[in-house]
């Protein structure tokens, strides 16, 4: 019933593998890996489904509501589908797949979900402000040595450490 849980890769192994995947993506497409771009397109699409006139009139989401920017027409959406597939393959083959509500270990289910939604809101807003997330800006910006990637990572780690200290009681 319970398959053997296989250990994670050594960070150096995982880092080299991630670097090679990132390099392959650059050579294949001309840009790096991303994630938040998909959620921007998803938000625009949902906005268009729920309140089309308001979404079209919105200065930020409006331009995403054309056929060319439909979620299914963009590379990053298929990349995210791939991330799900690759994640399932790794989790299942490593004996690490299990349905659960993970998160802040010192909270119950509803508290964990509230923190997940709250953290998601901060991240969704922040990724738009930064023009990318940990993957699209932090990783894919820093690899070609863009100043923007490193500025992002400094903000990410400094604020992450400070907020991590404030919430340490629920997370550790």
């Amino acid at each position, binding site marked *: 019933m319970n398959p053997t849980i296989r250990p994670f890769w050594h960070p150096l192994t995982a880092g080299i593998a991630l670097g090679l995947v990132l390099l392959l993506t650059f050579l294949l497409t001309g840009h790096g890996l991303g994630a938040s771009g998909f959620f921007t397109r998803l938000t625009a699409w949902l*906005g268009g489904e729920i309140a089309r006139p308001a979404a079209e009139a919105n200065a930020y989401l409006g331009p995403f509501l054309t056929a060319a920017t439909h979620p299914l027409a963009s590379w990053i959406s298929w990349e995210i589908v*791939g991330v799900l597939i690759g994640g399932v393959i790794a989790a299942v083959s490593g004996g690490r797949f299990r349905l*659960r509500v993970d998160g802040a270990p010192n909270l119950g289910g509803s508290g964990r979900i509230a923190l997940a939604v709250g953290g998601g809101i901060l991240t969704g807003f922040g990724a738009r402000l930064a023009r990318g997330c940990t993957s699209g800006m932090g990783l894919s910006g820093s690899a070609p040595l863009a100043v923007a990637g490193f500025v992002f990572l400094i903000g990410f780690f400094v604020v992450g450490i400070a*907020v991590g200290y404030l919430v340490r009681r629920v997370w550790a």
Partner: protein
Amino acid sequence: MSLPLYDTGIASGLLSGILFGYVLENAGFASPRKLTAQFRFTDWSVFKVMFTAVIVAGIGLYAAIGLGLMPANGIYIPTTFFWATLTGGGLVGAGMAVGGYCPGTSTVGLASGRLDGLFFMAGMVLGTGLFAAVFEPIERFYLAAQGPQGQTLPMLFGLPAWVVLLLLAILAAAGFAVGSRIERALGGPLTAEQVNGRDASRKDELVEEIEIVRVQTG
């Protein structure tokens, strides 16, 4: 054949994504406990994996340019908008500290069966909508302090790329050494057993308690 191929089709997206997701999950980055432990310095995997990946990909990219396989302006290099880039990065860091993920890792979180990853995604949609709602009032901040188009560290410091990469590698090696020492002093990085074992969620504890009660009463 000239690089990059500029292949942005479905197969290319799926290929990059599958490899990306496979590596992220194997690194342990589907676990919000492992990811947030970086901010408490008890697990340095996020720093180690990201820094290594940046250097490996950076060496590959600048080698491809240096060997004439790819033009220097062939790949996308983001432009800094100092305040927006910095505070946006900060908010993404805060989001991970609170919610346990970033956009890519919430996706592998869900892929490993973590339903909180799905709620994090729902939060991101709300946050993106919120950003769109206040976009016009904050547009000046969004565009403030724009840096030179596609500026890189070699341009900023006036150094060759290989020198910058070498300095980053030295910094990474120092970070690996310091991080590993701190990790050991604080009990070691979280293992797959620890974040996936039976004690990893309250639901399992509950199941265990029911088992104990059953044994006692039965």
